C-alpha cells in the first residue's frame, strides 16, 4: 500500500490539492452567488428608497433578510415542476445544465491569489493553470448559448423560441466584441494565461502608478464591460428575459429548472466581476505589495509575513469581485432596457469597429520606438 502512495505521490498530491481548491473556491463562489440574489434585491431597494426583503426569519431572527436566499430556494423546490406536454423531454431537462455548467467550469481558471506555502509545498491559488486560460473562458462562455437555444426550442412554445433566437443573436454578436477587446490585453501582456496576466500587472508605471490593465487599456475596459454585460444578458441588455413584456426563452420553465437559469445568471455576474478584476484591475495584486511586503514609491518599506501577504492578496481579489458585482447590479438598476435593434446596432456598428480600432492603436503604439 505504501508502495502505491510512494509511486503515485505526484498525482495523488495534485488530485488532493485540486479537490481542496475546488471545494474551497467553488464553495466561496456559490455562497457569494446566493448572497448576490439577496444583494440584487437589497441594492435595488436601497437605490429606490425602499427597505427590501427583511421578513424571512429563523426562530424570529431575520438579520435584515439574510435568510431570504434560503427561503427563495425552499420556495423554488416546493413549486410544481412543470413540463409542457409536447416538449422535447431530454433537451428540456438538459438546457438548465447547459446554462449552469459552463458558467461554473469557468471558475477553474480564475487566479484568486498568487501562491501559498503549505508544509513546504508551493500551492498555486488557481484551480487549473491553463496556459491559454483566456481562450478557455471565451470558448466556454460561448457554450452557454446552448442553454438558451435548447431551453427555447425544447419547450415547443413560440414565445420561448423567439426569446431564444433573440438571446442567441445577442450572445453571438457580443461574443465577437468580447473576444476582440481582449486581444489588446494579450498583445500587451504577451500571454493568454490569466495567472500570467495578473503577474504582469504587478509592476509600476512611471514609478508610482500600478501597471493595471485599465491604465494601459482604459478604452478596452469600457468595451469589455459593455460586451460582458450584454453577453451576460443583464440589464440594460436584459431583453432576453424581459419578463413583463417580451418573455424570454425560459418561459415554460418552473421550479428548480427555472432557478438553475436564474442562478446561472448570477454566477455569470460573479464571473464577469472576476474577469474585470483579473484582466483590468490587477486581479489579486495590491498596489505596492510584493512577495516580501509593502514597498512604497517613496522608499518606505513594511516587511510582512508570507501568509499575511497571501491573505491580503486573496482579500484584495475578493474585494474587487464584490465591488464589480455591486457595480453590475447598480448598472442593471440604473439604465433602461435597450431595444433589440438598438442592441444589435450598438454591438455591430459601434463596439465592433471600436474594438478593432483599439487593436490597431495598441499594435501601433507597441511598435513605436518608445
Amino acid at each position, binding site marked *: 500500500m505504501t508502495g502505491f502512495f510512494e509511486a503515485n505521490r505526484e498525482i495523488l498530491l495534485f488530485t488532493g490539492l485540486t479537490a481542496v481548491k475546488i471545494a474551497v473556491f467553488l464553495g466561496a463562489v456559490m455562497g457569494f452567488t446566493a448572497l448576490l440574489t439577496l444583494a440584487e434585491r437589497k441594492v435595488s431597494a*436601497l437605490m429606490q428608497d425602499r427597505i427590501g426583503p427583511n421578513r424571512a426569519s429563523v426562530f424570529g431572527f431575520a438579520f435584515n433578510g439574510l435568510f431570504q436566499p434560503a427561503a427563495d430556494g425552499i420556495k423554488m423546490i416546493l413549486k410544481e415542476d412543470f413540463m409542457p406536454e409536447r416538449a422535447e423531454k431530454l433537451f428540456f431537462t438538459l438546457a438548465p445544465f447547459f446554462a449552469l455548467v459552463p458558467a461554473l467550469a469557468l471558475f477553474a481558471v480564475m487566479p484568486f491569489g498568487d501562491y501559498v506555502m503549505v508544509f513546504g509545498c508551493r500551492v498555486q491559488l488557481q484551480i487549473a493553470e491553463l496556459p491559454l486560460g483566456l481562450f478557455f473562458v471565451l470558448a466556454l462562455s460561448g457554450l452557454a448559448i446552448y442553454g438558451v437555444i435548447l431551453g427555447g426550442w425544447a419547450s415547443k412554445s413560440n414565445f420561448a423560441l423567439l426569446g431564444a433566437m433573440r438571446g442567441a443573436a445577442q450572445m453571438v454578436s457580443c461574443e465577437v466584441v468580447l473576444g476582440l477587446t481582449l486581444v489588446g490585453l494579450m498583445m500587451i501582456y504577451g500571454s493568454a494565461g490569466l495567472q500570467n496576466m495578473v503577474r504582469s500587472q504587478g509592476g509600476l508605471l512611471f514609478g508610482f502608478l500600478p501597471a493595471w490593465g485599465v491604465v494601459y487599456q482604459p478604452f478596452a475596459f469600457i468595451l469589455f464591460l459593455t460586451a460582458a454585460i450584454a453577453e451576460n444578458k443583464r440589464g440594460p441588455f436584459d431583453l432576453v428575459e424581459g419578463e413583463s413584456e417580451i418573455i424570454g426563452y425560459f418561459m415554460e420553465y418552473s421550479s428548480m429548472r427555472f432557478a438553475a437559469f436564474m442562478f446561472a445568471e448570477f454566477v455569470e455576474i460573479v464571473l464577469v466581476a472576476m474577469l474585470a478584476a483579473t484582466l483590468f484591475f490587477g486581479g489579486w495584486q495590491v498596489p505596492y505589495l510584493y512577495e516580501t511586503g509593502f514597498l512604497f514609491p517613496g522608499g518606505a518599506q513594511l516587511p510582512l509575513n508570507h501568509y499575511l501577504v497571501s491573505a491580503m492578496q486573496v482579500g484584495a481579489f475578493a474585494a474587487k469581485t464584490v465591488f464589480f458585482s455591486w457595480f453590475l447590479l447598480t448598472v442593471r438598476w440604473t439604465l433602461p432596457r435597450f431595444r433589440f435593434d438598438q442592441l444589435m446596432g450598438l454591438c455591430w456598428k459601434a463596439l465592433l469597429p471600436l474594438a478593432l480600432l483599439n487593436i490597431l492603436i495598441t499594435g501601433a503604439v507597441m511598435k513605436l520606438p518608445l
Partner: protein
Amino acid sequence: MISVKKVDNKPLNLLERVYLLEIARGIAVTAGHFFRNLINPEGMPTVQYPEQRIPLPGNARLRTRHRLKIRADGSPKCVACFLCRTACPACCIHIEAAEYPENTVEKYPAVFDIDLSRCVVCGMCVEACPEDAIAMDTNELPGGALARPDMMLTKETLLRDIPSTGDPSVKGASNRLANEYLKTRGEQ
C-alpha cells in the same frame, strides 16, 4: 375626439449619443441614493407597514372600512333598498331584506354582508345611499387576511357608531315618514 399631444424630442448630441457621460450621471444618482440609505436607513420614507403605521389624514376624501350607521334606538338606518348593491362595481354587497313585524311599511336588512376581498374601496355605495346609512369613515384600513371568510364583513361587524365623529345618529328621514304614515293610518 382623441387629443394628440405632439412631443418634440430633441435629437441627442454627440456627447449624449456616446452614452458614457449620461450613464455615469445616472449611476451617480442611484449610487448616491444607495449610499445615503445605506448609511442612514432611518431617512427612508418606507414604513414597516403592519407594525408601524402612518397616521391617516382623516379628511373628507379618505375612504376606509365601511360601517352601517344606527339610529338612536339602535336599529340600522339602512332600509334595504339595494341601491348600494346596484351601484357597487365589484358586486361585493349582499343584502337580504326583512320587515319589522310592527311596522309594515319599512324594511330593514336581515343580512348585510360586504366582501372586503372584492371591495375596490370606490365609495360608490356611500354616494348611492339615499338614507346616509353607509359610511366609510371608520379610519380602519381594510387589511389582508389569511382566509377568505375573514374578509367578510357581516351586519353585526358593520353596525356601529363612531361617537368621536359627533355624527348625529338621529332617527332617519324614512323612519320619521313611516311613523307619520302609520300615525295617519291609525287615525283613520
